[in-house]
C-alpha cells in the first residue's frame, strides 16, 4: 500500500517542472545586476575584452610596429587615431594589441595562480597532518621571497621570453596568496560535518576535496581571483615600466606607459602614454567593482537584495 503510493508520487514527478532554487551563480548574477556600478564595470570589461581581441584579429602587427621615419611623434590625426611614437608607429594599434597582451597575461597569470593555488591549498588543507606540514614549509619559503626582486632577476635570466614564459615566471611567485587562503578555508571545511559525512558515505577523498569542499570555497576563489586579476594587470605594467617586462615588439599597456619615463613624452606627448594609463585605471577600477560585487554576493550579510 505504502509502496504504491510512493511510486505514484515519484512517477508523477516531472523534474523539468520543478522550480529550481537559485544556484550560487544566479545569486552572483542577481547581485551584479542590482549594483549598477558593477554592472557598468562588467559591461565595460566585456566590451574592452571583446573589442581588443576582436579588433586585433584584423590588425596587422607587422604594420603597426613598422618604423616610419617620417611619422615620428605625430599627434593624433585621422590617420593615426592616437598619434605615433618615437618610431613612427601607430599608438592606437599598439594600444589595442597592448591591451590584448596585458589582458592575456592578466588572465593567464590569474588562472594559473588560481589553479596551482587552489590545488595546493585544497590538498594541504584537506589532508592536513604531515602533508600539510611539508606543503606549508614549501609555501612559507615562497612567501619570504621578495617577489618583485626575484621576478626581475628571473626576467634577466630567461633568454627568450614571450607572453607564456613571462606569465609562468609571474605565476611561479604569485600562487601563494590564494593557496594560503584556500588552505585555511579547507582546514575549516574538512572539519565540518558534511565533509565527514561524505567520508562515511564512502566517497573517495579526492572526490570529497573537489566535489564537496571545492564548491564551498568556490565563491572565495572567484572573488580572490577577480581581485587578483586587477593586481596582475597592474604588476605587468609595473614590471614593464621598470624595464623588466615586455620588449617593445610585444606591446603591452606597460610598455606604452614606460614611454612616459622620457620626460618629454610625459609632458608633451600625452597621446602615447595617457590612453594606456586611463585604460589601466579603468580596467583595474572595473575589475575591482565587479570583484566587490562578487564579494557581497558571496557574503549573505552584505547582500543587497
Amino acid at each position, binding site marked *: 500500500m505504502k509502496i504504491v*503510493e*510512493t*511510486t505514484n*508520487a*515519484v*512517477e508523477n*514527478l516531472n*523534474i523539468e517542472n*520543478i*522550480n*529550481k*532554487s537559485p544556484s*550560487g551563480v544566479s545569486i552572483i548574477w542577481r547581485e551584479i545586476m542590482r549594483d549598477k556600478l558593477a554592472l557598468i564595470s562588467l559591461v565595460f570589461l566585456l566590451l574592452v575584452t571583446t573589442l581588443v581581441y576582436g579588433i586585433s584579429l584584423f590588425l596587422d602587427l607587422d604594420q603597426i610596429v613598422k618604423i616610419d621615419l617620417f611619422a615620428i611623434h605625430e599627434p593624433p590625426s585621422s590617420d593615426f587615431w592616437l598619434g605615433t611614437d618615437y618610431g613612427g608607429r601607430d599608438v592606437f594599434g599598439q594600444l589595442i594589441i597592448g591591451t590584448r597582451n596585458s589582458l592575456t597575461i592578466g588572465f593567464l597569470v590569474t588562472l594559473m595562480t588560481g589553479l596551482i593555488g587552489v590545488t595546493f591549498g585544497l590538498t594541504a588543507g584537506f589532508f592536513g597532518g604531515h602533508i600539510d606540514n611539508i606543503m606549508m614549509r614549501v609555501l612559507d619559503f615562497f612567501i619570504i621571497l621578495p617577489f618583485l626582486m626575484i621576478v626581475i632577476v628571473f626576467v634577466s635570466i630567461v633568454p627568450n621570453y614571450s607572453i607564456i614564459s613571462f606569465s609562468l615566471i609571474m605565476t611561479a611567485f604569485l600562487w601563494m596568496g590564494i593557496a594560503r587562503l584556500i588552505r585555511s578555508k579547507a582546514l575549516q571545511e574538512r572539519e*565540518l*560535518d*558534511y565533509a*565527514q*559525512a*561524505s*567520508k*562515511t*558515505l*564512502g*566517497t*573517495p577523498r579526492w572526490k570529497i576535496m573537489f566535489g*564537496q569542499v571545492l*564548491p*564551498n570555497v*568556490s565563491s572565495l576563489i572567484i572573488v580572490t581571483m577577480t581581485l587578483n586579476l586587477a593586481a596582475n594587470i597592474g604588476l605587468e605594467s609595473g614590471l614593464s615600466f621598470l624595464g623588466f617586462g615586455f620588449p617593445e615588439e610585444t606591446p603591452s599597456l606597460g610598455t606604452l606607459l614606460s614611454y612616459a619615463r622620457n620626460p618629454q613624452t610625459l609632458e608633451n606627448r600625452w597621446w602615447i602614454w595617457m590612453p594606456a594609463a586611463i585604460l589601466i585605471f579603468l580596467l583595474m577600477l572595473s575589475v575591482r567593482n565587479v570583484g566587490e560585487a562578487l564579494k557581497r554576493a558571496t557574503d549573505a550579510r552584505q547582500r543587497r537584495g
Partner: protein
Amino acid sequence: MEFLKVEDLKIHFPIRGGLLNRKIDSVRAVDGVSFSIEQGKTYGLVGESGSGKTTTGRAIIGLNNITSGKVFFEGNDLTDNSKKVDVRKDIQMIFQDPYSSLNPKKRVIDIVAEPLRNYERLTKKEERYKVAELLEKVGLSPESILKYPHEFSGGQRQRIGIARAIALKPKLIIADEPVSALDVSVQAQVLNFMKDIQKELNLTYLFISHDLGIVKHMSDEIGIMYKGRYVEEGKTEEIFTNPQHIYTKRLVAAIPDINPQNREKQKIFRQSVQEEFEQSYHDYFDEEGLAYNLRNISNSHSVALPEKG
C-alpha cells in the same frame, strides 16, 4: 557471532609542543571501552560532552583513528587494515547538526544520491526515482529534490540526513545526537520516525546522546561513559531502576519528571544523590578522577567499582 563488538577501544590524541613541536603528551579521549550490540537493537551511549561517546561512534565508522583495541562488525575486524573488507556500505551515520552535515552548495538530490553514486551504478532516471522514493520514505515531498538544504527546517534537514543514511540499506546506523540540535517539538517526531524505519529496515542503532531521557526512550541497552571510560552498562530497565554507580545515579536523578505530583519526591531524591556523591566520590573514582574497570554485577549489568577486598 556478535553483530558489533568493540573490545578495549582506546583513542588518544597527541598534544604537541616544545621547541620542535614534538608529541609531549596525549589526551585519552577514549580509554578502554568494550561493548557489543545485537542486530536489530538500539544501544544507547550516554555521557556528558567530552566523555568520549562521539569519539567512540566516529571511530567505529572510521572518522577517528583508533589507537588500540578492536572493532568487530559481523565478525570482521574493522581495525585490521590489511584485510580490506568493505563494510562502509553497511554502517552509516546520522550527524548531530543537520545544518552543517548537509553540503550547503548541493541540491537535495546530490546529497541523497551521494552514497548511491559511490556504490551503485544507476542511470540518471533510476537515481532520481530512488532519491524521490527515499524522500518519500522520510516524509518529505519528492518535489523538493532540486532544493538546497537551507530551504528546509531543521527537522526536515535531519530527515534528509536520514534519507542519505538509509540510501544504501545499511545494517548499522550510528546516530550521533541526532535530535539535540532540534526543537523539542520536533525531537519526538524524528525519534519516532527513526523507530519506525528501524522496524521497517531491520536497522541496528548505536544511539549517542547526552540526554538520558531520550536514550531511555530509544534504547534496549545503555552504556554510560565518563572521561573516556565506561562507568556502567546494562539493560535500559536495569540502569534506570537500579543504578549502581554514583555518576549514573546523578544522571538518572537529573531527568525531569513530567508528573507534577512527583516533584517533591524527585527533589528529595536529587538531594540525597548529591549528598552521596559528595561523600563517596572517592569510592567511585580513582586518584585521577577516572572510573575503575567494569565489574559484572549481573549477566547484563556491569558497573565500574573498585575491587572490594
